[in-house]
């Protein structure tokens, strides 16, 4: 077998095998985090109307939008909101961006993630108009950090920030084409979980890596899990 044939063979085999591996991984995750996955699905169906509305406002469907964050919802359930360490909030409000890298709420959003979103929105001519309500006056001030945390503590604002994230990505990667909605979800979910300001090539590489959940010894592929949720929610 020459090199090209061997490459073609490997490519075909990986196309045949990888989806099954991914499915197996998602199945294992579902087994290990059974009640947490059930919690995520229940959250979706209980709030379907709100999520539908949010998805429509940014031109997508609710299952797609929610699947971006669904694996994180399982971790919210796993860690339980009551375990959110209050002192982290004090350090963030008092100390600013150095202390902004911790997760809050159903979608496990970080204050640093919201700060990045705000920057993207205010730097865009279009989004600074349509998503003006997401911006906070004097964003580096203490009062802005208090507002950000207050918002993050509510499900409604997490949903607003999720739609804002979707719109930022739609604009930022408007020239990127995806084979299908699952490929798009893989990219968007990876960008959500690992940082939407990472270079495209890095985000594509990360789609194949197992690095989730943060605190577990056993790691899973975040993009695979998002796709599994998409199938479950549709």
């Amino acid at each position: 077998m020459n090199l090209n044939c061997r490459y073609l063979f490997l490519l075909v085999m990986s196309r045949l095998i990888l989806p099954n591996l991914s499915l197996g991984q998602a199945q294992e995750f579902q087994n290990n985090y059974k009640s947490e996955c059930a919690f995520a699905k229940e959250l979706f169906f209980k709030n379907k109307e709100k999520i539908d509305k949010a998805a429509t406002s940014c031109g997508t469907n609710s299952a797609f939008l929610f699947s971006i964050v669904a694996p994180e919802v399982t971790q919210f359930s796993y860690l339980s909101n009551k375990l959110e360490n209050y002192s982290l909030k004090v350090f963030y409000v008092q100390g600013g961006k150095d202390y902004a890298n911790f997760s809050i709420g159903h979608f496990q959003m970080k204050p640093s993630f919201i700060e990045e979103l705000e920057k993207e929105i205010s730097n865009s001519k279009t989004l600074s108009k349509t998503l003006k309500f997401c911006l906070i006056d004097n964003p580096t001030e203490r009062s802005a950090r208090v507002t950000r945390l207050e918002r993050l503590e509510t499900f409604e604002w997490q949903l607003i920030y999720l739609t804002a994230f979707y719109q930022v990505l739609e604009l930022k990667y408007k020239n990127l084409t995806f084979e299908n909605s699952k490929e798009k979800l893989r990219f968007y979910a990876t960008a959500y979980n690992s940082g939407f300001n990472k270079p495209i090539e890095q985000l594509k590489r990360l789609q194949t890596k197992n690095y989730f959940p943060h605190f577990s010894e056993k790691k899973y592929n975040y993009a695979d899990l998002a796709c599994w949720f998409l199938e479950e929610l549709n």
Partner: protein
Amino acid sequence: MKLRLIILISILAFNSLAQTANLKRTVLFTMLPTEHVYLGEYFLAQSSSARKFSCILIDETKNNLTFVFNGTRVKTVPGSDPLDVLRIDYLNSTETNGYKFKYIIKDKNRNDQTYINCFSENFGPFEDANFSPPWGYYAPEEMKQIKYYYKLGGRWYGKTSSKNVMLNVGDNNYTPSYQYKVGPYDFTWINGNYYITYNKSVIHKKAYKDIHYFYSNGENFAFCYPENNQYYFQINDTSYGPYRAIDNFETIDYKTFKFYYLGTDNIWYYFNGETSIKSRLTGKENFISEEFEQYGNPEVFSADYKNSLISDYKYEYVVIDGEAYGKSPAYHAWYDSAKNAFIWSGIEGKDLVVYEFKL
């Protein structure tokens, strides 16, 4: 009228002074302008008491981590994540040099070299090192004397005060099931199930689908087993559980043992055979002093419930009995019965401060 007003103002001023006199502010530690306390995703790598403060500081401009113990900078290592290069195993601010940690530094060939610091004594470099035994090795009797474990020349050793013990580590590094065993107790595999045996004869009719962490010192045995997606821990004839998960299991002498389990409330608990203490997830995180974790807005009462302290991150003060005090919210607060005082910690710029309010 004027006189009354003067008296009223004097009384108010005196009250205010008296209240301020009850308040004492101490700066425990001042970070450099480029430093901040290391913040994990869900925790602060920090612990504090009224007069002591320990933490990991990060200096992103220099890409350095510094371990601070009771206000003294103990060790600085290159790196940006303590989970990779600086892991604290033990911290007790009431002891002199009350800490143990491991750290990793690259040598001139860019290879990782691991060091151990035990109560201010440094050991290493090693190929790898840890305070807990490597996977596949559990030796309860020896554990008592082993200060730390290290790897050299591809083999693991345990360091006691007098000798280095070569360890017989199992081949399987990740799924330990057969640990330390001497004497007649054992388990065997019959028709798809495990059974406990004594001198190779089955002594318990109970069948187990799987067995983890099997120990025996000849007279006792202990092991963990899963059943119906739950986990149990058995020591001789006593079974503990069910738990959603078990982790970091150790038995010292078959009467003293400890492990972490995941409760039905999704919270990890540390169980020492008698009491369960709420804990954090184990395994991947750096050291956290549970005593100083604060999961909700501080709301503290005096012993007789006549005095209260509340704090909220939104406000730059705390409220004691309806009056505002201090210049920052508390990130941790408690009532000290010996001093009959409220004590709270705060961060003000680069200062880590503690306030004490005598009642």
